[in-house]
């Protein structure tokens, strides 16, 4: 009797320890990444001096011997900043416009397709964006470029802009949807038109969420590697015009890493460390600034079991405080653009004053109906702009996917589908068969590691840790940090730890291990979210029947969260399939069939990058791109199939109840 009692206590204790250990893994990973990057970067800092490293303008790896080596990364810092700014200007504005259109103005039947379009756009691997930029945008720009050069600032801004558009759009959409319906009703009740309500009341109420979205967009832009190197021109210099080539921090790392050694290698790691530090400082500021807001949000989340703020927005929250200023700046610019548009309308309608005062929110009262009507006209222009933005996005997606499909199909016809897909790769022959095997192995390794750890960590955070306790805060800070780290940094970490320190060299195992650290936060967050969505009342009911914690988790909570876990898995697969930068550094770039998990191998994305960058195998590149696109769309379809159905069911439940 007593024994049984103790046994169950022991079981509970052991389980708790396992979950806690898993949760600590996130902390350990971040600590390890920081530690190893710093450790490996120290030679460069020592040789060059921190000030010189950051602020000198010459990057000259020692081709002529160590004496002539110079490592100054200021041009890259400036390059990254410019690339991010340009991307934000294009992608941020478009993203917000698309979100506003989807949420408020889109006819119901187009809503779901548009949301799907956004999520497909988000899933497309960066190598495809890069290749598309290289093959379509760069030549087009070259035609209008005064120096005949298509690559450079504008090309990068356009490509990165389209890339961050879905991030901004989907998070803005979430933020807008979280605005209480009562605001809209209240605005209408005051006599505002739909357009006025949207732009004057609803969008401003979602301001913090939109800033978060823009912040996350910045994060994605800063960390992007592969797409950038394909269109940036990659010259270490300060760009003076829209068509000047330049180099980003990430580009520099991935371009040099494969052959660098000694201090050069260390300098690249140090560059990664600077990138990482940047993210960490931002996270720190975020926690200081947003601490209060987070607390409230947490309370809200616990009281209302499904607060609906998706995993991604949590990352956004973490970054928001830090990025707020940049976002505000961008928002200001956007505002100015809108204002200009409005003023133009005013002239046309010969009601300049009334409209401007209405837009500025001054003295809209007691002026009578005419002013409302004219002001409404201004807002309709904004509405039209949102629709135009959406059209631009749809056109871009259609163009991009259409381009890949057409070119890819042609390529398959020319190379022979079966041959290329499944043929034996060899000296002269290219085949995707190795990519199938490698990608599969990478998915298998990383899921085998990150899924159990992620699920256990999420269980600890949701079921065991006291909400708001210091441990939880620390763990969340570290998982949030982990998810904000650019993949190239994971790549560097993988190189240093798995390839070098553990002696795995370029191998699938090393790549898989790196990816498993990388996708861990995705898994933790998605599972955490789905655990939080399991109503507290289920747990209460189980406890009230006398069940213990482990029994409740195993029999009630996890089965209910199964769909969330499945979604986490599929999301992770998506990230693994489209990842290239980190894999290029860790798993190597070979076209051969891997002999085992200790031999190097290339996933689809890496394979495509190789075909694309070598310039010799255009057909193969297009064909691989097509395969990737098909995979991305399939993954989206699977997530769509898992996700919305669940929501519908819940709604039906509510209706019945």
């Amino acid at each position, binding site marked *: *009797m*007593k024994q049984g*009692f103790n046994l*169950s206590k022991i079981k509970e204790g052991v389980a708790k320890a396992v979950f806690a250990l898993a949760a600590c893994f996130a902390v350990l990973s971040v600590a390890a990444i920081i530690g190893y990057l710093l450790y490996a970067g120290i030679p460069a800092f020592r040789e060059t001096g921190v000030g010189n490293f950051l602020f000198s303008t010459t990057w000259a790896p020692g081709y002529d011997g160590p004496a002539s080596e110079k490592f100054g990364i200021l041009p890259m810092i400036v390059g990254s900043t410019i690339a991010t700014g340009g991307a934000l200007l294009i992608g941020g504005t478009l993203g917000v416009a698309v979100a506003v259109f989807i949420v408020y103005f889109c006819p119901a039947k187009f809503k779901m397709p548009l949301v799907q379009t956004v999520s497909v756009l988000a899933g497309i691997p960066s190598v495809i964006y890069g290749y598309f930029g290289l093959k379509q945008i760069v030549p087009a720009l070259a035609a209008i470029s005064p120096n005949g050069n298509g690559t450079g600032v504008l090309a990068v801004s356009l490509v990165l802009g389209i890339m961050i558009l879905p991030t901004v759009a989907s998070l803005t959409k979430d933020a807008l949807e979280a605005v209480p319906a009562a605001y809209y009703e209240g605005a209408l009740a005051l006599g505002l038109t739909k357009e006025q309500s949207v732009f004057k009341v609803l969008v401003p109420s979602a301001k913090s969420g939109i800033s978060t979205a823009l912040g996350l967009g910045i994060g994605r832009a800063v960390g992007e590697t592969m797409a950038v190197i394909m269109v940036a021109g990659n010259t270490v210099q300060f760009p003076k015009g829209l068509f000047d080539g330049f180099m980003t921090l990430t580009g520099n790392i991935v371009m040099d890493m494969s052959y660098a050694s000694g201090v050069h290698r260390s300098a690249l790691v140090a560059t990664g460390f600077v990138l990482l530090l940047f993210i960490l400082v931002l996270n720190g500021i975020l926690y200081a600034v947003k601490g209060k807001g987070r607390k409230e949000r947490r309370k809200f989340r616990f009281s209302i079991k499904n607060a609906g703020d998706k995993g991604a927005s949590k990352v956004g929250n973490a970054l928001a405080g830090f990025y707020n200023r940049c976002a505000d700046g961008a928002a200001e610019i956007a505002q100015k653009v809108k204002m200009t548009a409005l003023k133009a309308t005013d002239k046309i309608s010969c009601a300049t004053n009334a409209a401007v005062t209405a837009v500025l929110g001054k003295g809209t009262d007691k002026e009578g109906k005419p002013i409302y009507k004219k002001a409404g006209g201004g807002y309709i222009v904004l509405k039209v702009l949102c629709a135009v933005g959406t059209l631009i996005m749809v056109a871009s997606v259609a163009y991009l996917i259409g381009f890949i499909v057409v070119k890819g199909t042609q390529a398959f016809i020319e190379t022979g589908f079966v041959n290329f897909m499944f043929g034996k790769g060899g000296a002269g022959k290219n085949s995707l068969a190795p990519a199938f095997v490698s990608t599969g192995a990478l998915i298998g390794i990383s899921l085998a590691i990150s899924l159990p750890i992620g699920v256990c960590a999420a269980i600890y955070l949701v079921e065991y840790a*006291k909400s708001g306790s210091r441990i939880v805060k620390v763990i969340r800070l570290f998982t949030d940090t982990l998810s904000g780290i650019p993949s190239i940094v994971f790549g560097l970490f993988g190189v240093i730890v798995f390839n070098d320190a553990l002696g795995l060299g370029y191998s699938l195992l090393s790549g898989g291990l790196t990816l498993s650290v990388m996708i861990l936060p995705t898994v933790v967050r998605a599972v955490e979210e789905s655990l939080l969505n399991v*109503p507290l*009342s*289920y747990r*209460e*009911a*189980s*406890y*009230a*029947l*006398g*069940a*213990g914690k482990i*029994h409740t988790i195993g*029999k*009630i909570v996890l*089965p*209910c969260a199964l769909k969330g876990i499945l979604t986490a898995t599929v999301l992770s697969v998506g990230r693994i399939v489209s990842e290239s930068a980190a894999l290029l550094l860790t798993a190597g770039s070979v076209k051969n069939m891997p002999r085992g998990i200790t031999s190097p191998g290339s996933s689809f994305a890496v394979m495509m990058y190789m075909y694309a960058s070598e310039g010799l195998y255009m057909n193969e590149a297009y064909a691989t791109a097509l395969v990737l696109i098909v995979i991305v769309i399939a993954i989206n379809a699977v997530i769509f199939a898992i996700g919305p159905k669940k929501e519908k*069911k819940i709604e039906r*439940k509510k209706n*019945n*109840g």
Partner: protein
Amino acid sequence: MKEKRITDKFEVTDVAVSMKNVNLYYGAFQALKNINMDVAKGEITAFIGPSGCGKSTLLKCINRMNDLVEGCRIEGTFEIGGRNIYGAGVDLQTLRRNVGMVFQKPNPFPVSVYDNITYGPRLYGIRDKATLSAIVEDSLKRAAMWDELKDRLDKSALALSGGQQQRLCIARALSVQPQILLMDEPTSALDPISTGKIEELCAELKEKVTIIIVTHNMQQAARISDKTGFFLLGELIEYASTEKIFSNPEKEQTERYITGRFG
């Protein structure tokens, strides 16, 4: 053998629950102040009082659901069958098996009707299909919904109406044969007809199960309970027969509350 031990442990006597000098704190806040009350076996006892008066808190002490609340400290004794449920060596499982609970909002698990009811018995090691089926039938009959549900045992519990869900939750609580059933505002989320059914069910159950019900609805307390306790700001102001409380309460505070002149 195991089952016998469990039921033997908390065999309720004429007094189902005896609470003595109960104080409860949430951190520095004292939520219950020196509560003393005996709940009689085979009766329905109602706890009434304004929101935040401590009635639900006290209810949750009786099956130790407050253990889940952070920073909750409990003083005093709760005796069931002569044993202090907060004493050393008390097995929570055993306690909760004997003291079932039904919550404010119906909370069936998102599985079939059958699996909902067998969750408890399985937890206590019953694996035999025939036994489980018998338990399902018995529990549903006691909850007066066997005829409604006997052909829908494999349907999801979430497809039931709110009132049916709540009665299913009662059936689920009954599946482990508790001696005491705690009900925390069990009808506050339900329409009057479902409420009526649950009240009827309570009256039928009380022969075998001692029921303690927290309710915001004074009329409900008046309708179904035998004894009523009125709580205010963490204190038990008055505890007497329901008729006495509602026709001629001793304390002015009780009078003011039940006549709607509170505050």
